[in-house]
């Protein structure tokens, strides 16, 4: 726990509050900031590893965070990710003020993508993001509507 706190302090991540044994972290996500894309997810992974979460589970948490983070960076005009680390689970909540998803069911299908070519050239936009989140999480919820942004909640148990 002490090591995890040391990391959080060094990175100057915004810690919302310390709820009992849980850690609540918040990361801002900036539109098209590819230089730092994925940084939040790497940090989340390090924190949960420091707190004793096994490598396979930390990977699932990290994949959930990374795909959601990239979606917000690519499609939305930025947003934020809140991560709550508890002794038995990690919850991730990603909110953006982007254009929203007109057809969530279609977007959940593998291969469905609306990413532009410059994103595809980076190796993304293959239509695997949302399916990857759903596959990696134990619980997955998404709410989105055109003009209303997107809200995603994921839970990974250890």
């Amino acid at each position, binding site marked *: 726990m002490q090591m995890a706190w040391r990391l959080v302090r060094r990175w100057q991540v915004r810690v919302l509050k310390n709820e009992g044994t849980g850690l609540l972290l918040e990361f801002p996500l900036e539109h098209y900031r*590819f*230089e730092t*894309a*994925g*940084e939040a*997810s*790497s940090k989340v*992974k390090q924190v949960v590893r420091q707190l004793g979460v096994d*490598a*396979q589970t*930390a*990977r*699932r948490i*990290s*994949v959930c*965070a*990374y*795909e959601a983070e990239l979606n917000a960076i690519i499609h939305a005009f930025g947003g934020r990710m809140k991560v709550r680390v508890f002794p038995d689970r990690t919850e991730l909540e990603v909110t953006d003020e982007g254009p929203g998803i007109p057809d969530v069911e279609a977007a959940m299908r*593998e291969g469905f993508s609306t990413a532009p070519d410059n994103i595809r050239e*980076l*190796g*993304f936009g*293959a*239509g*695997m*993001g949302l*399916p*990857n989140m*759903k*596959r*990696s999480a134990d619980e997955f919820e998404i709410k989105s509507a055109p003009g209303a942004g997107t809200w995603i909640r994921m839970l990974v148990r250890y």
Partner: protein
Amino acid sequence: MKLSEVQRLLGATLIWGEHCLEREVATACGADLMSDVLAFTKDGALLLTGLINPQVVRTADVGGLSAIVFVRGKTPSPEAAAMARELDIPLFSTPHTLFQACGILYANGLAPCPPLAGKSLEE
């Protein structure tokens, strides 16, 4: 298979990570789609790719991959190389194409990643 053996079989140049050459890899994945890498690899897998941007290194970190081999003699961007040092992910460059490099490693016993690393979507 040790990374040193991967390097020898592929005639690869080590770009960074000499201290990792004894690291063992059991599975490998050849891909240019980063979400496919996350969907289809397991922890500790080797990634062969033609992409050289920093997001490849980030994906390897998120996916817990053991090393990256850039194909067709490509070398990573300076940002990607710096990130690999920071995240402790060894990098290699092989003159072979993606297809050839994968074939060589497969023929020498490196296993493909299982079809789906996570849960099935139908569950």
